[in-house]
């Protein structure tokens, strides 16, 4: 029990040390110093980078500033993915801190979504929660909640208030005992080299016989290549929140405890580092 609470807390308070460097092509009055920041894993880039913007705007002329966007080693970072997912997917085994380049020009419209205001992030976040609850409870719980409860969920995330968030989120994590779990587990599997952005399918936490599905069951179902066969070396790492849980971890538990605040279980499949 205490372990579960600790797990929740550790998940919520996870941080990634990041170094924001201004794109050298940007026109500046003087040389801009990099800005270091500990980014929360569970939040979104555009929600937590106001200071970065302010920092870099000090050295830039106002007329040169357009919408800020980030890229890592040439890959524009999608702001609507949780930061932890972005890191695990792109830079999980690299040297820390995570070096992100800040751009103010040449916004890649076909790669990234625009994020002009915080309300866009809120809308995206709430739609994720509703989608997850639709999978888990046929949207019953979310619809039973009032508007202020939704607001509480968003405010908890925005202000980094664990207790405030989880006071509401626990309702979304409940299930009736006869079912043994959620209706369907809300998950997304990300891969670096893939034509699809992510894999999301219906998957029950409990098998028809009543056995609890594990992570390996899910992977075998969704991405068999990720699971190493007997005798083979592990080719892929299954990373959730920066850790590799054991494949026999029950899925229901994973969904309850290792979900992101948007109630989805984001799983990253990355190739094992060869060094």
């Amino acid at each position, binding site marked *: 029990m205490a372990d579960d609470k600790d797990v*929740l807390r*550790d998940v919520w308070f996870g941080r990634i040390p990041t170094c924001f460097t201004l794109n050298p092509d940007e026109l500046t009055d003087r040389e801009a*110093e990099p800005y*270091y920041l500990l980014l929360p894993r569970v939040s979104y880039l555009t929600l937590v980078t106001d200071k970065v913007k302010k920092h870099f705007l000090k050295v830039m002329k106002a007329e040169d500033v357009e919408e800020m966007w980030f890229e890592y080693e040439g890959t524009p970072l999608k702001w609507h993915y949780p930061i932890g997912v972005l890191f695990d997917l792109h830079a999980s085994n690299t040297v820390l801190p995570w070096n992100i380049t800040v751009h103010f020009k040449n916004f890649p419209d076909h790669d990234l979504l625009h994020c002009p205001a915080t309300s866009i992030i809120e809308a995206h976040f709430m739609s994720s929660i509703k989608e997850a609850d639709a999978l888990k409870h046929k949207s019953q719980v979310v619809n039973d909640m009032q508007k202020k409860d939704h607001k509480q969920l968003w405010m908890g995330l925005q202000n980094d208030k664990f207790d405030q968030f989880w006071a509401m989120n626990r309702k979304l*994590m409940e299930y009736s005992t006869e079912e043994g779990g959620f209706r369907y587990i809300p998950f997304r599997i990300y891969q670096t080299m893939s034509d699809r952005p992510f894999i999301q399918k219906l998957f029950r936490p409990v098998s028809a016989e*009543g056995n609890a599905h594990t992570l390996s069951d899910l992977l075998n179902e969704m991405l068999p290549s990720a699971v190493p066969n007997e005798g083979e070396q592990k080719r892929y790492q299954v990373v959730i929140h920066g850790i590799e849980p054991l494949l*026999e971890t029950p899925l229901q538990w994973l969904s309850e405890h290792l979900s992101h605040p948007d109630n989805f279980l984001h799983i990253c499949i990355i190739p094992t580092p060869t060094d």
Partner: protein
Amino acid sequence: MAAVTVSGGHTVRRSGRVPAVGGGGGSAETWKRHIVRQLKHRDLKQHAMFQDLIRFYTQLLEKSSLAKGILNVRCPPSDSSSLISSLQLQKSTGELAYQVVELQQQIKIKECVLEEQHARLVEEKCQLTAAFYARQELQEQVEQVKTKNGALKLEYDALLEQQRGAETRLREAEDKGGHLLEDMIHLKQRAADRMNNLNERRSRARAVKLQKDLLNSARSKVAVDSSSSAPTSRSASPKSEGRDENTERRGTRLFRSASATSPRIFTSIKELFDRKRRGRSVCSLEEDLMGPVGICLAARVPVRALQVLEAHEQGINAVRFSSSSDLLATGGTDRIIKLWEVRAGLMSHRATLDGSTEGITCVEFDPTGLRVLAASYDKSALLWRLDDSVPKLTLTGHSRKVTAARFSSSFHRVVTGSADRTIRLWDLHRAACVQVVEVASYCSDLVCTENCIISGHYDSKIRVWDTRTMNCLQEVPAQGKVTSLDISAEHRQLLSCCRDDCLQLVDLRRWSNERMCFRADGFKCGSDSTKAVISPDGCFLAAGSADGAVYIWNVSTGKLETRLPDKHSSSISAVSWSLSGEYVVSVDKSRWAVLWSDI
């Protein structure tokens, strides 16, 4: 599980561990532990290591930008933002300077207040020390006063003790005084009781006798003749009520009264007709009359003692032969007078007269021989009738002892001389003092002649007084203190006995010239009241000496005739010569009386 930990117990929707998972209890924990460990590891690597670094970097960045901003103020403000910030800084500096000035002012004010308070504190301290010293002084004074008080208290206590002691002593003395007083009163009471008893007995005896006499006389027949009618009427004259018995007695003596000299009778009748109430007259008519006076033809010088007897209980002071009979009276310190009859060479006790409360100094018979007058130490003279042991009369008035009491020539008068330096004349009918004569000195003895009273005094003078006027006619010097006087039978010669052992005989007719002095070897006057006598015929002088011998001088030769020693063991106080001349009696202080005669 997670839901349970977060909420309390939500019954409808509960997420619990799926029982199927419980199959591998150990494995369930394994993956969880793995996850927990992994999370911890991740955090350590990614979070903790960079946390502080990034924080410090950010702070440094801010500081450097701030410094840059300040530096940029110096330059001509091309940046509006830097200008604004520099202006803001200026404003803040100005404000700060203003605040500094204000604060400095406040500091100054506070310092002033502080100084003032310091000054006040110093003042208060001074006052405190002054008060402290004053208090110490006062305390010392208090101590002094306390010690003084203590000393005073001690003194007071000592005095109190003394006072208490004195009080107790006083009380004791008072108690003793009270006791003594009580004892004295008691004794006096007892004496008075005795006296009362005695008087009662006597009066009872008298009453009884009277009854007997009355009965006898009532029975006896009285021969009454007409010659005695006058006296009878006399006797019927108004007298006091208590005189009935006297009437009867007078009846028996009518015979005698009828033979009285005439002038007396007439004066008595005159008095009767005056209807004078005689009151308590102690002298009846017949007693005013003169009785026959005997004359001695020749006195005989005594040769030897016929009888020596112990006459009284205590010392004898006076002795006197009666002039009309052979009765002898002796009186002394034992307060009684004893009457003796001398017959055939022997003294026999006849009667006792008492009633004096103190010793007798002098005894005299009246010329009739029926009454005895005595002078006493109890400041009174007493008069007895011979047949009555109770004194008929007590003459009081002197303030000291009466040394001599004599019947005056006028019969109802008595002269007393006393140690209180007065001579008093008393009237026997009234029993009162009629005259008091102040004399210069203690009168030791008296004699009476027809017209004068002669008194001898301690100042060695003999004074002669006129009887009627009581003026001092003459003062005759004596050899020394006069102890006694005696007069010869025909009132011609006066004998005075002096303390310097000399007897002096003075001729009364020729005062100044003839004075004979008689001395003798071995004759010493024994006391201040030694009595010397002239013999009834006037030829001899007798006196008792301190050596216990009787000395007899011959008047005509002036020499000692004889000396009678060895019978007295102590000083002789008085001598008396009987009228017949036969006997001489001497008495002394040791209670002895000696009867001398020449037979």
